[in-house]
């Protein structure tokens, strides 16, 4: 068993490398322009050499594609940027000054920081501002530089770089802003889907081929075939037509000014904003999942041990909920693994219709603005989650059904 899991886990990095390499090439070479490419809007001037130098620092523009990929992965490390060196040296010197008890040393370090501050304006070189320092600081500068810990760049070190479209923010920052929102929304959806789908599936199976089942099947198929973006727009239209007191909000996660509401009202406000997106995100899955549940349940109900249970005089409820239900949950439980990536990935259409700043909207905007760093981060995270999800569902099979084994002799 352990060998099996280890084998799967060891394969993952290679698969990930393949996935990211292909997506990196496709995204970077796709037609259309990004902020790094001059001419993104019709009035743009060509970039000057100095601007290119700035962009080369952050996005490695003008380098061959394979090098850019290696920079992105973190197998190649870029030269640190002048301002970064200065900041690191300054904070290191400040740290040393705070730690030292020797007043002479302290004064020297403070003077060094001031020298760095004074030297900033004339620093022309992009790589090494230390050379512009007065001679007498050279020794101290070398000493401090030796102690500075230069951070590792690249995905290997959990650094996704700067966002191309909003260079003031790092990709990690943007992901961290979006992630909790999508997570909240999808965890709620997850509960809604399972709590609705399981009973519906049971009803369908128990009343098999009777009117209830037929109506339910029809209704679920209708639901399944409605496109969710269209339903979302219809719901919004409906809200506008409703009298004011019954309307549900459809823009964003909270109305402005909600921060000043009392706690309960605040929670209610948040809940109201969630209702419409949750409906749109979950109804399709409810329809499909309840089908799985119904089929699973039907298989079990026809099994011999159920007939035995009935024969021995068990009450019908016990038969269904105790004997049949537990055994028919197997396919449903294993589907949880497949839901993992969608929990994080978010929905592109629904999030953009309801202006919910989650992962889906982030990816959508990243596609439109050719923000390759953000896109790559999303793809990497998505790929990892899909792989983990598949592994989880395989393992769940193993856990819930002792008849399945992945290894010889198990």
């Amino acid at each position, binding site marked *: 068993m352990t060998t099996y899991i280890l084998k799967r886990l060891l394969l993952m990095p290679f698969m990930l490398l393949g996935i990211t390499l292909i997506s990196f090439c496709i995204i970077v070479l796709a037609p259309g322009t990004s902020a790094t490419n001059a001419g993104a809007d019709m009035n743009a001037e060509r970039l000057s050499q100095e601007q*290119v130098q700035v962009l080369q620092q952050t996005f490695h523009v003008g380098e061959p594609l394979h090098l850019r990929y290696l920079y992105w992965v973190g197998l190649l490390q870029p030269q640190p940027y002048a301002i970064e060196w200065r900041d690191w040296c300054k904070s290191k010197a400040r740290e040393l000054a705070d730690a030292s008890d020797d007043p002479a040393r302290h004064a020297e370090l403070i003077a060094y920081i001031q020298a760095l501050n004074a030297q900033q304006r004339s620093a022309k070189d992009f790589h090494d501002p230390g050379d512009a320092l007065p001679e007498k600081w050279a020794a101290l500068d070398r000493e401090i530089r030796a102690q500075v810990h230069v951070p590792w760049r690249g995905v290997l070190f959990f650094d996704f770089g700067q966002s191309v479209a909003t260079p003031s923010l790092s990709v990690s920052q943007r992901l961290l802003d979006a992630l909790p929102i999508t997570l909240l929304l999808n965890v709620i959806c997850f509960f809604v889907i399972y709590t609705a789908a399981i009973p519906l599936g049971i009803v369908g199976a128990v009343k098999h081929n009777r009117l209830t089942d037929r109506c339910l099947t029809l209704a679920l198929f209708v639901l399944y075939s409605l496109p969710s973006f269209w339903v979302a727009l219809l719901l919004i239209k409906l809200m506008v037509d409703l009298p004011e007191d019954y309307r549900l909000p459809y823009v964003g996660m909270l109305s402005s000014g909600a921060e000043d509401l009392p706690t309960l009202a605040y929670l209610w406000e948040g809940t109201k904003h969630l209702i419409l997106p949750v409906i749109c995100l979950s109804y399709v899955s409810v329809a499909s999942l309840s089908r799985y549940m119904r089929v699973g349940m039907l298989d079990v109900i026809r099994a011999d041990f159920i007939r035995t249970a009935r024969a021995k005089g068990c009450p019908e409820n016990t038969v269904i909920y105790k004997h049949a239900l537990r055994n028919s949950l197997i396919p449903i439980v294993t589907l949880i693994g497949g839901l993992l990536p969608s929990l994080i990935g978010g929905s592109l259409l629904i999030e953009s219709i309801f202006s919910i700043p989650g992962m889906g909207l982030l990816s959508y905007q990243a596609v439109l603005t050719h923000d390759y760093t953000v896109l790559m981060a999303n793809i990497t995270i998505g790929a990892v989650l899909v792989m983990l999800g598949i592994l989880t569902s395989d393992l769940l099979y193993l856990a819930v059904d002792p008849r399945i084994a992945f290894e010889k002799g198990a």
Partner: protein
Amino acid sequence: MRDRPLFLDVAPLVLLFVAAVLLAIIVIENERGWRVMQEIKKEQAALTEQNRAILSKLTDGLKLQPSGTPETPRETAHETPEFKTGDDLLGEVTEGQRCPEPNGDEKAEDGDWLVTAAQEDPKSLNALIEHAADVSGLFYSAHDSLCGRAFKDLKWWEPHLAHAWAKALVCFAYPKDGNAKALADEINAKWDAALKKKLQIRTITAADAEGRPAVRIAIADVNNDYREVLKKDFGARIFTQWWFYVSFNGPGDFMDGKTITPDAVAELLEAKLAAAGVKGQFLAPVKGSQRVVLRLLGDEKNRDAVAAGLKALEASPDNTCKVIDDKSASGKREDRLLGFEQMEDYLAQEKPVFTFFLRKDVKWHDGKPFSGKDAVWTYNTIMDPRILCGPMRNYYQDLESVALVNDDPYTVRFTWFKPYFRAWSQSAEFVPISEAYYHYDDPKEFNTGPKNMNLVGDGAWQLDHWERQKELVFVRNENYYGAKPHFKRQVVQIIKERQVQLQAFEEGKLDYYNLLPSQMKSRENDEAFRGKFNVNISIANNYRYIGWNERNPLFKDKAVRQALTLLVDRERICKETMRGYAVPQHGTVHPDNPAYWKDLDKHAWPFDPERAKKQLAEAGWKDTDGDGVLDKDGVPFRFSLIIRTAVPEFEALASMVKESFAKAGIEVKVNNLDWSALLEKVNHLNFDAVLLGWQLGSGEEDPYQLWHSSQIHEKEHNFCRFVNKEADQIIEDCRRELNPDKRYAKLQRFQQIILNEQPYTFLFVEKRLVAYDNRIQNVQYRLIGGNSDRWWVPVARQKHKE
């Protein structure tokens, strides 16, 4: 199942109970904390109110003091400047006046909020860096320019940060014998006072310009009437200056691996010309970020040699370099290096000079005072090649300097290095930003630093807060020196989908909305809609067209392009696809622009398929093989038209054009592309025909970028390859002609050429379809946009009361 312990049955219930109790405690605690916060907030508000009262008492006291009172800024703001230093570039100082036409808000009441929506967050709030159209309007209201066009009258310049200004022209002529003093004396003697007055000449002196003796002529206005007189009287004794404009590609490397810089290009040019045996006196080359100007003094033989040398250089196979290209696997791509754009001749180098006298009572939003030093710093920042403000730098590339006059922080002088008719408007509309807030050591800090998440301006609107992906809130700047807007607050909600924006607007959550033609058509006469909202329809400042790429042999013949225009029924397009909310357009100048040729409509190409067919047949296009498609020399008339995807109006338009062309035997394949893919095709000149539009500026357009023959390369705007010698000459002349009437006369001829050549099939000017909540009063729209700062709401109908 009796053997199961009781505990396990109860455990979930117990857990649930504990959780409920915990939740209740959290809610109650939170509630208490919230109450305390509210009280603190109230106290804070009361304290601020008290402080304000004390402060106003204090300042009142100060004003009452009879002696030793520090001058309050407001009194000195309008003091007329006096310059005793004999500055001959001041000309007539104009004290700025507000346009006398009433704004319509004389009875306005203050208060209420204006809530609008945008599709996307701005990328940054730095006015030099961000250019996104969706929110850029807000930057204009958060920052002020030196002067601005009056809303009611575009020709009228209103004072903003500058309360007065003076225009002048300073010219440098180089005498052939090098004796500037003698020539200046002679000119002074020959031209009498009356002539000088007519030409508005202030002084004629000998001066040293760029290390050479020169005659300096100072003129009290941007008036170049002196040119002809000088040429007639002294032309023979003065060097003609020949200016050669050479553009270069980049960013990238020369073939030998050295990086392309303006200095390197200038060196290369000098070396090549010297190698070609060109001799002559050159002034120092002028180096810009995309071009180098060589300036030759002297005779026509040398001029021809230089021009021939540059042309040979442009045509030579060595004229290549490696430019940076994201889309190629190696990161670089081979492309042409140099382009010889044009040549100009001057008798004297003319430099327009504008002096602005700034108000002394202007404060940045953070309370720091504004002065001319900020303007100078802003100019230096725009010119810093490391700063990512390309489009803006492009506008100011002929601006030689911005400097204080006599170190007076409230007098700023803009000097342009060549005559350009837009020099004045571009100087006047210059927007300074705060040095104290934005100063940087490292360009990265300015380009992408965290300061760009905030905004410090000097305009009527001040940033309150910006919550990404949710809203951008501006409050009225209560310390604003000019006329304050009437709304207290302006909220921009970020709503991604236009459809959802419309729903929010109809529900009353947004105060105004730009409708699409189809949306407007169904609402314009809808009583329920009109009961809640007012509608304002005005002509927009843009036009749409189909551009024919003349690189494609199909479109080379102008008779064919004319025939294609004859096949497009513009009236029907306006009526059907644009639902009547558009006006047919026939030329490159907007009908409301003063340069518009008034008779253009009469001479415009009508919709006439028969005539088109005849004209095509005359040009050799006949259906010889009977497949329903015209052909010539075995080539069928078949091309693809690229349009922007997801705009229903364009799709309808394209299919209408396709149908009409099909009837004449021309097969069109319509290609839907998303915006950036379409731009890439156009930028790389890789298309047959394209449906596009131009958004026009507030002033007179400069046709150079769109129609000059030097602008036909990749990423330049003459992507249809319109090349016409006469048009080139007119464009070049117009750029340096400072007299508007003479310029309009030349532009009229230019419009005739465009009409005859039909490089585009011009389609229509759209209308701006605005619907707004009917509690808002005084909504007016003109060519340049709306007067939203003058909108107001009667107190009784105000929605948001603070």
